[in-house]
């Protein structure tokens, strides 16, 4: 009981002192998860939109794959990526294993299906009359598509935040392909795992508090966006 209490005291001291090691770990987490999310949006939104707006061949199959991908266990992603990136693997020449780059790829694989699938759903659910309205007002096919996508923006943002939620909290994939190297590939979740293992609870608890805070903020943002999309509060989001 006493060690737990002591751990919390020390943890808060670390946080309040803006401990450099702590900050470095948090900053890398933001870079890795943020980078992965950005990539997931850059590729997932166009794919989701394309499937929603055009009759793609194999659309059903792609949708099934993507929906399956939403539930991929992070450790399996880590394992497969490890095998691909290891020195003797087919992508070994890239020398990415145990780098932040590998961690971004791993988390991208986890976020991509979520962003794609939720963007697709949001765009498919836009009332068909929006498309007609765009057309009768003179939109060309690209403008028409962008208008429908814009109408789905709250759902798309929700999907992106959900993707972020998935990657910030996961440890399985980044610990395998990142290797948890001090000062280089250590992120919040992997550090918690390692330091707990070593019995060094101060840093683990401090990072745990920060991770919980981030999750909380993500959830608050999610709810706020969903509320904005529904309410008739007169808020304008396209000025």
């Amino acid at each position, binding site marked *: 009981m006493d060690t737990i209490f002591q751990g919390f005291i020390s943890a808060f001291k670390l946080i309040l002192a803006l401990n450099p090691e702590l900050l470095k770990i948090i900053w890398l987490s933001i870079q890795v998860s943020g980078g992965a999310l950005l990539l997931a949006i850059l590729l997932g939104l166009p794919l989701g939109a394309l499937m929603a707006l055009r009759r793609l061949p194999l659309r059903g199959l792609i949708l099934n794959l993507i929906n399956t991908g939403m539930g991929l266990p992070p450790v399996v992603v880590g394992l497969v990526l490890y095998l691909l990136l290891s020195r003797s693997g087919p992508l070994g020449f890239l020398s990415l294993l145990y780098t932040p780059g590998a961690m971004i790829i791993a988390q991208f694989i986890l976020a991509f299906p979520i962003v794609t699938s939720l963007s697709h759903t949001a765009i498919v659910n836009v*009332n068909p*009359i*929006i498309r*007609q*309205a*765009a*057309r*009768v*007002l*003179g*939109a*060309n096919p690209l*403008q028409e598509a962008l*208008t429908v996508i*814009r*109408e789905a923006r709250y759902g798309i943002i929700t999907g992106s935040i959900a993707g972020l939620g998935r990657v910030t909290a996961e440890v399985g994939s980044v610990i395998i392909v990142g290797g948890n190297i001090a000062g280089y590939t250590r992120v919040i979740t992997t550090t918690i795992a390692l330091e707990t293992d070593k019995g060094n609870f101060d840093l683990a608890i401090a990072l745990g508090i920060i991770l919980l805070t981030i999750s909380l903020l993500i959830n608050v943002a999610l709810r706020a966006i969903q509320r904005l999309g529904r309410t*008739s*509060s*007169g*808020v*304008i*989001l*396209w*000025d």
Partner: protein
Amino acid sequence: MGLALELVEISKTYNGLEVLQGCSWTFEAGLTHVIMGPNGTGKSTLLRLCALIEVPDRGRVIYLADGQPLAPDLALKRRLTLLLPGVGVFNTSVFHNVAYGLKIRGMGSKEVEERVGAILETVGLAAKRRQRALDLSTGQSKRLGLARAMVIEPEVILLDEPTASIDQENSEIIEGIIKKIKAERKATIVMVTHDPAQAERLADRLLLMRDGKIAPL
């Protein structure tokens, strides 16, 4: 003087139901044509075909300028518009809904500002320009739809029940606006309504749609 519109033997079938059955008609340039007729006879379908947002299964929809047929390309589509029965309000502000048609035509923001401002005055929505358009009442939404259509100064304006299911006051405002468009004598108007008195007041040509065909009333 506006465009004339010629329908040649157009047919349209949905799920095995032949809604339009070889319908032919000529809507003369610059006149107001009012179509009445029972529900489900294909009036809305006809207007969507006229707006070139759907194509007939058979037959042709031909726009004519001084008797010369025009190619059904984007340039022609941008000379027409249709006020949909459900309007299709975008989830943006009132201002941006009306500005839409001008922006996608590449108009500069200063001119957009002026034109939209003027139209919003005309339809009585100037005070609501910054409001979320989805918050408007049904009647206001119809006025918004009309503003969105008018701002692009169409040569053909297709109106699908512009005063259906709204209150008397909004209905009168909208009818007043249509009269104004009519008085300018620049646009060809094709309008569907269920209100015989209104049809009488607005029409140069009164038409009846029945069994997938148009006939004079």
